[in-house]
């Protein structure tokens, strides 16, 4: 992990990595044009492997960032990418990139995403990778197509190529006024060209389409209810499937009496060991049949929320981290420092709770399987299906309709796999849609964690010692951006008692919270302004820039804070993005903390779509409010106690503060993704604001699950 991180600052981290399948194109040259019709196709992979799509059976490394662009006889442009649209609006931003380089109107572009039969392999949509990796690749592919089209027109017209230009989907000649639609140029031809890695692309300061706020390209279909999410889909003869779930984590089935369910009219029961599902054409009937199954379970002992932190400490594995010499002693630097902080932070499990629960629809045709499912990893689900059904993945097509969000919580394909297993026995298509309770219980959580920090600073405000031990949260965001010589930073993995995995920003939500809380408290001890203290210890100019931008907009240190109010500041950087957050809170008599005002400054290089970037930043902050203030998974003896929105509080309209976003546009820096990093600053900014208002130093996430006591 360490080596990879050094090579690639935005490499996915532990919870995102899964063993990827060796890659093979599922579409070769012949069937490519067979499916798409004739025209011009641009293909490529990362590293520009020669003859990529032509050979049909090459193996590529897991980092392949591939896409195809096809231009048909009508000038319609179709882009094929294995990325998944889960609300980050990648369908829009990638369209913008192609429109920019190819000089075609954006409504002439269709993005085919997340379909294992039509798009090249992509290992998944996570880690804020679509814009920094897929973006530049698509830009080159579209630019390559543009140059080839110019060549073709020059040759057809026997014209000087320099006299030609491309605009609005046409090649035009200035002097003569001649024009030809790009579709007419490619009509009837079958041209397959590799991407030219050295093709000139449009520099940031000349962007006309990227860099503008193009609205969500298929927005209307959602607003009218026309868009079919997986959970909305239906096939002829389809059955609804419901799964039998254990009553608690780790429970094993002792006995199940399925006879009553089986005898119900129109009901099929599928049993495969502990896997029991019921099927009926009517969802209501399927629900009744499920209830009719009588079961006995063996429930093992299992940690509860009130013992989880002791459990994590006690079951920690060998540490990993940037400074892995656990014998090294940094204690003397700590003991002799002017000011010291020694704090332990406790981080609860929280749920992604995407509003569309997991859903899968499966259809077998002989030994061929098609599964529609809302996932961030369609190719990963294809691989999982191949494994569990022991069939070649060439026989499996996974299609991911634009999905009701993920936030890192849909890297898997459970509902699709369940539907496929049920459909195999039923001989008919099957849809499985998880209930909210299932989604809260059997999806996976953001890891819980314990974080121990010992830090010290000299009286001039220089941080001198930094020890940071993280148990189970993860390594993301664990490094400190502050210059400190004497440091020890370690992550201790734990076999989590609850199922855990990726979450927006990963462990950085926890690590940045702990770090920025400690930084705040050191500054207080030193009687230094927390902003000044941070700036003094930072070397990274991009981090300083966002801090100063946020502070300026917030009037940090300039305006008097109202009685009962408090202000806090925090910053962080992950995945090529930089965020600084200022928050003002007020406290009420009822123990409620109201977040009155938030300013977020964010910088992720050159901005592709300012409107959607602002939306992502606002959304991340509001989602982050939940994890900061009140979200937690309660569990006892392996049972999830609050698997409902009525018991698991998420941010609502009334929780929304006045929220100002400052976006720094660095056109000189390649664009990074923005879906995750803006979430990092809100929890510590609120925590530090509570300290400012009340003097209470809180060490938990969420900060005030039961109100401020």
């Amino acid at each position: 992990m360490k080596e990879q991180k050094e090579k690639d600052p935005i490499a996915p981290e532990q919870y995102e990595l899964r063993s990827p399948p060796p890659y093979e194109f599922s579409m070769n040259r012949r069937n490519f044009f067979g499916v798409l019709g004739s025209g011009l196709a641009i293909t490529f992979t990362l590293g520009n492997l020669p003859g990529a799509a032509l050979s049909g059976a090459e193996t590529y490394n897991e980092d392949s960032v591939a896409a195809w662009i096809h231009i048909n006889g009508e000038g319609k442009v179709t882009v094929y990418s294995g990325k998944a649209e889960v609300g980050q609006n990648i369908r829009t931003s990638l369209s913008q990139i192609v429109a920019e380089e190819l000089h075609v109107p954006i409504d002439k572009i269709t993005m085919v995403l997340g379909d294992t039969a039509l798009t090249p392999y992509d290992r998944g949509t996570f880690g804020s990778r679509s814009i920094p990796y897929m973006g530049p690749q698509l830009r080159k592919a579209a630019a390559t197509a543009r140059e080839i089209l110019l060549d073709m027109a020059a040759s057809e017209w026997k014209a000087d190529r320099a006299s030609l230009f491309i605009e609005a989907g046409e090649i035009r000649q200035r002097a003569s006024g001649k024009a030809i639609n790009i579709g007419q140029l490619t009509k009837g031809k079958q041209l397959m060209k590799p991407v030219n890695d050295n093709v000139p692309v449009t520099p940031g300061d000349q962007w006309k389409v990227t860099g503008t706020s193009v609205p969500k390209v298929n927005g209307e279909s959602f607003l009218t209810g026309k868009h079919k999410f997986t959970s909305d889909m239906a096939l002829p003869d389809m059955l609804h499937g419901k799964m039998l779930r254990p009553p608690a984590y780790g429970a094993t089935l002792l006995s199940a009496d399925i006879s009553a369910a089986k005898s119900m009219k129109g009901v099929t029961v599928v049993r495969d060991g502990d896997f029991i599902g019921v099927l009926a054409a009517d969802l209501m009937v399927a629900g009744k049949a499920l209830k009719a199954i009588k079961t006995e379970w063996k429930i093992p002992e299992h940690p509860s929320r009130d013992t989880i932190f002791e459990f994590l400490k006690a079951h920690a594995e060998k540490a990993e981290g940037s400074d892995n010499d656990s014998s090294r002693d940094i204690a003397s630097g700590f003991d002799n420092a002017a000011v010291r902080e020694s704090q332990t932070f406790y981080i609860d499990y929280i749920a992604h709770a995407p509003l569309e629960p997991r859903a899968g629809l499966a259809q077998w045709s002989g030994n061929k399987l098609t599964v529609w499912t809302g996932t961030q990893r369609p190719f990963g689900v294809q691989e999982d299906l191949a494994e569990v059904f022991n069939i070649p993945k060439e026989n499996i097509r996974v299609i991911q309709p634009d999905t009701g969000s993920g936030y890192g919580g849909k890297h898997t394909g459970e509902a699709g796999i369940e539907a496929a297993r049920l459909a195999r026995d039923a001989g008919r298509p099957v849809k499985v849609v998880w209930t909210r309770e299932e989604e809260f219980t059997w999806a996976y959580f953001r890891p819980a964690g314990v974080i121990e920090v010992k830090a010290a600073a000299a009286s001039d405000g220089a941080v001198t010692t930094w020890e940071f031990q993280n148990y189970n949260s993860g390594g993301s965001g664990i490094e400190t951006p502050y210059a400190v010589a004497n440091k020890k930073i370690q992550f201790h993995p734990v076999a989590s008692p609850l199922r855990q995995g990726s979450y927006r920003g990963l462990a950085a939500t926890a690590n940045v919270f702990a770090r920025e809380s400690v930084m705040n408290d050191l500054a207080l001890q030193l009687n230094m302004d927390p902003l000044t203290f941070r700036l003094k210890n930072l070397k990274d100019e991009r981090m300083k820039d966002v801090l100063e931008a946020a502070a300026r907009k917030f009037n940090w240190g300039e305006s008097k804070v109202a009685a009962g109010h408090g202000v806090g500041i925090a910053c962080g950087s992950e995945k090529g993005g930089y965020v600084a957050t200022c928050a003002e809170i007020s406290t009420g008599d009822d123990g409620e903390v109201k977040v009155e005002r938030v300013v977020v400054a964010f910088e992720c290089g050159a901005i592709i779509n300012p409107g959607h970037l602002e939306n992502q930043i606002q959304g991340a902050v509001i989602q982050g409010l939940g994890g900061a203030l009140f979200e937690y998974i309660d569990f006892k003896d392996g049972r999830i106690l609050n698997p409902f929105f009525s018991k698991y509080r998420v941010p609502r309209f009334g929780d929304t503060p006045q929220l100002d976003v400052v976006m720094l546009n660095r056109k000189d820096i390649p664009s990074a993704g923005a879906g995750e990093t803006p979430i990092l600053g809100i929890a510590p900014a609120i925590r530090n604001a509570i300290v400012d208002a009340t003097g209470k130093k809180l060490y938990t996430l969420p900060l005030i699950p039961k109100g401020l006591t």
Partner: protein
Amino acid sequence: MDLLINDKKYNVAAEPGESLLNVLRNRLDLTGSKYGCGEGSCGACTVLIDGTAARSCITPAGTTVGKKIITIEGVAKNGELHAVQKAFLRADAFQCAYCAPGMVMSAVSLLGKTASPSETQIKAAMQGNICRCGTYPRIMKAIQEAANI
């Protein structure tokens, strides 16, 4: 039972106690209303019953007989989007947009009763609709804009 949905009469064979949401989605293929929680706490399933926003997931279909039900499929008229839908589009309000139909229905209900709601009134009326992507500021803007038309 006979239901009047989007000005059209439907005869449906629903189970006793079956939710209106289930009837819409699984018997009539009106899937614009979404399942989000099944307990009336997320708003994804919001429809209008006699002009008032209601959570169809906890509304037994039988109780809506004789009432006028409008779903997201029925707010646009003659191919023209409702003013609220247009405002949402202009505000480019959404990320995943799974909550969008429910948000639109709650907003249509609000503006049907209060033509120019204050920010506090909007927040109160929309409090039952969850957007997990956190696009509340843009939804707020869209509703305010729709109210000013």
